[in-house]
């Protein structure tokens, strides 16, 4: 860490006094501003000390989910921007699970969408709405091309 010496300074008024060659005048009006007048024999700084220069805002950045670190995109000293991805955790498992669900999701969305559109047009769409149970859901999506054409048929009929 950087060592820093903090020394008291002078206010504008005290500085003006010094340039005039007069001793700084301490009045109650300016007392809160005037700390000291360095240079004069009686004008010692109020405080001389060593300390640390530190960042006002610093944070230990953690992870939101547990896992193995797949990549780290920084070293000590790297500048980062707000919102920038600085590290990634392995997520092949989530990708795999999502991929496993994807065809089903797409199928059920299009079928459900067709059902909803058909229903909005006032067609008597009882059948497929009744088939929306979770177990049947899966079957239906596997047969999604047929389901789609059936739904399209219903739309056409309406």
């Amino acid at each position, binding site marked *: 860490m950087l*060592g*820093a*010496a*903090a*020394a008291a*300074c002078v*206010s504008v008024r005290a500085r003006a006094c010094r340039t005039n060659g007069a001793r700084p005048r301490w009045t109650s009006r300016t007392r*809160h*501003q005037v*700390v000291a007048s360095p240079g004069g024999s009686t004008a010692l700084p*109020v*405080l001389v*000390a*060593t*300390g*640390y*220069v*530190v*960042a*006002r*805002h*610093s*944070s*230990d*950045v*953690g*992870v*939101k*989910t*547990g*896992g*193995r*670190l797949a990549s*780290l995109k*920084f*070293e*000590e*000293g790297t*500048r*980062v*921007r*707000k*919102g920038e991805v*600085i*590290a*990634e*955790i392995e997520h092949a498992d*989530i990708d795999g*699970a999502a991929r496993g*669900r994807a065809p089903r*999701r797409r199928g*059920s*969305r299009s079928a*459900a*969408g067709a*059902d*909803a559109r058909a*229903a909005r047009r006032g067609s008597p769409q009882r059948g497929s*709405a009744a088939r*929306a149970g979770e177990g049947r859901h899966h079957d239906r999506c596997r047969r999604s091309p047929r389901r789609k054409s059936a739904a399209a048929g219903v739309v056409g009929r309406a």
Partner: protein
Amino acid sequence: MKSAEAAIASARARVRVTEEAIENTNVRAPFDGVVIKKRAEVGETVSPFGVAGQASREGGAIATIADLAELEVQTEVSENTVAKLVGAMPAEVKLQAYR
């Protein structure tokens, strides 16, 4: 029709959940700054609550980021002088390294 719309809403919610789960595997910088401490390496297992052996304060942190645009000086003040200090006093800071 309600059931079909519910199915769409449910599917959309599942998409959001998956997207959020994937987003949670990204660690993003909370503000502009500089990495001042690297606390993990590639291949290490991390958790939001830290791992055994890690200081509890670090609690799963992988990096310490500081905003060096705003600095402050921390110094100790003796009892003799603390009463003489008031807010907004001007002060001069000298850095040994930048003379």
